[in-house]
């Protein structure tokens, strides 16, 4: 278990539409995070996947984060580049709410990564010196509600986009679920691209990942409250990591970003 305090870069506020879970009310989630030595968590909103009025979603997210004191919650507003005038919402997130980044769900918003507006969005995010969090999937595709089956985001166009977007800082959330292919590893070794460990699977998978990807590219993420928070924290015990690597993953990388 980590001795250092944790920055969890992958939590979400609100309720998932097909299931209530034990920590999907903010006081319970904050208590759980606090119990596990989380000092800061980067939060998106489940509503952001489904609501069209993202201004209201992001306002609520910012208010909820500000009101919470047990753990420092950092709001990451939701942006959908297919909605009209998404540029204004991006500006509100950055200037009004002073968010350090935004969260993207291309598969729930219905666009592929080769959509021209996605390239514009990445460029705008980078120009504002924001962090982009791109969620690859939310849940096991075998377990989805039959009316809400959503394929994982196809990351293949990303390598070229990252190359043509100077200054981009992109964190892939829930990207490490299945067998890792060489293309994903190459992408993670590209300048400015990061991942987290919420859906990383297999015994000792984290120590294996560090042989393939620089430890500076790996952040701590839990995907709470959808997943039990303890899943991510126990991975740090299962893999034999030097203490400095643990500190780098659970806090220093997020601080640097």
């Amino acid at each position, binding site marked *: 278990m980590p001795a250092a305090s944790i920055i969890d870069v992958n939590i979400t506020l609100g309720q998932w539409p097909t299931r209530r879970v034990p920590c999907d009310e903010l006081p319970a989630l904050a208590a759980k995070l606090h119990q596990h030595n989380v000092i800061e968590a980067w939060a998106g909103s489940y509503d952001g996947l489904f609501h069209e009025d993202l201004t209201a979603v992001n306002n609520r997210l910012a208010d909820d984060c500000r009101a919470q004191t047990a753990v420092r919650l950092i709001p990451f507003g939701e942006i959908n580049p297919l909605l009209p005038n998404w540029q204004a919402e991006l500006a509100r997130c950055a200037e009004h709410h002073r968010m350090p980044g935004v969260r993207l769900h291309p598969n729930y918003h219905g666009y592929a990564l080769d959509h021209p507006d996605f390239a514009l969005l990445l460029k705008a995010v980078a120009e504002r010196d924001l962090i982009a969090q791109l969620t690859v999937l939310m849940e096991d595709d075998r377990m989805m509600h039959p009316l809400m089956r959503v394929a994982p985001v196809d990351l293949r166009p990303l390598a070229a986009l990252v190359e043509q977007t100077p200054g981009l800082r992109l964190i892939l959330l829930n990207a490490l679920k299945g067998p890792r292919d060489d293309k994903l590893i190459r992408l993670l070794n590209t300048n400015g691209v990061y991942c987290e460990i919420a*859906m990383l699977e297999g015994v000792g998978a984290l120590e294996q990942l560090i042989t393939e990807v620089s430890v500076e590219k790996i952040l701590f993420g839990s995907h709470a409250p959808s997943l039990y928070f303890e899943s991510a924290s126990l991975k740090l015990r299962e893999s034999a990591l030097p203490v400095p690597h643990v500190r780098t993953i659970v806090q220093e990388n997020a601080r640097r970003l």
Partner: protein
Amino acid sequence: MEIWDVHCHLASLPGNTPDARLARLLEFADRMGVERVCVFMGLTWSYDPSPADLRQQNDEVLAAIAHYPDRAFGFVYLSPKHVRESLDELNRCVADGPMVGVKLWVAVRADALELDPIVERATELKAVVLQHAWMKVTGNLPGESTPIQLATLAARHPNAKLICGHTGGDWEQGIRAVRAHANISVDLGGGDPAAGITEMAVRELGPERIVFGSDAPGRSFASQLAKVYGAAIPDDAKQLIFATNLKRLLKPILTDKGLSVDN
């Protein structure tokens, strides 16, 4: 807490021999406080194994557990497509060998009548039967069982000790499917550590019908242990799930084999 794991494999681990692979698995188990593991299936799998393939995979498990008699139990891997040969394997590995359970995977659905002689013989031997079960919105494999089909099998064999692998995959349906059959326990392992699975299982089945399984090494011990450590249930329920329930299920066959089990 004491932890026994009902669901582990040797495939996809480093090591040239079965015992080298089990040694590697136990290194991780040690880090996570898992004292005992049940292992089944060999180094290479197929959905529809031939009798020769079954025998080879069981030989690999026998070779592995022989090196760790105080840490690992074996379950014999059988296929209802080959009933006679499966009964031979059951006798070789359980009646005359050290194994204590049966693993059925995806060759034949659990409600098929071909399972009856296998389950009857396993019950005579006091062996548990762990049936893989999933209910996938993406569609099951042709021979892949749902927890509903396992419930049908349980109704025909009320004295059998059945374990529903993966809690049926889609656990919200799986738990409901097996609820009426007291001779089915659920194995928590093998799915994402989705919050709420253990709380629902305790609510609907009671903590005595839940056993901890990881499906390691494909899954991490960490993600699967989190389902119990992270659940909002009392500590005594966690201990039942982590070890006590599996000990209770295995105690009769272990006693027959001259092994003692504390409760």
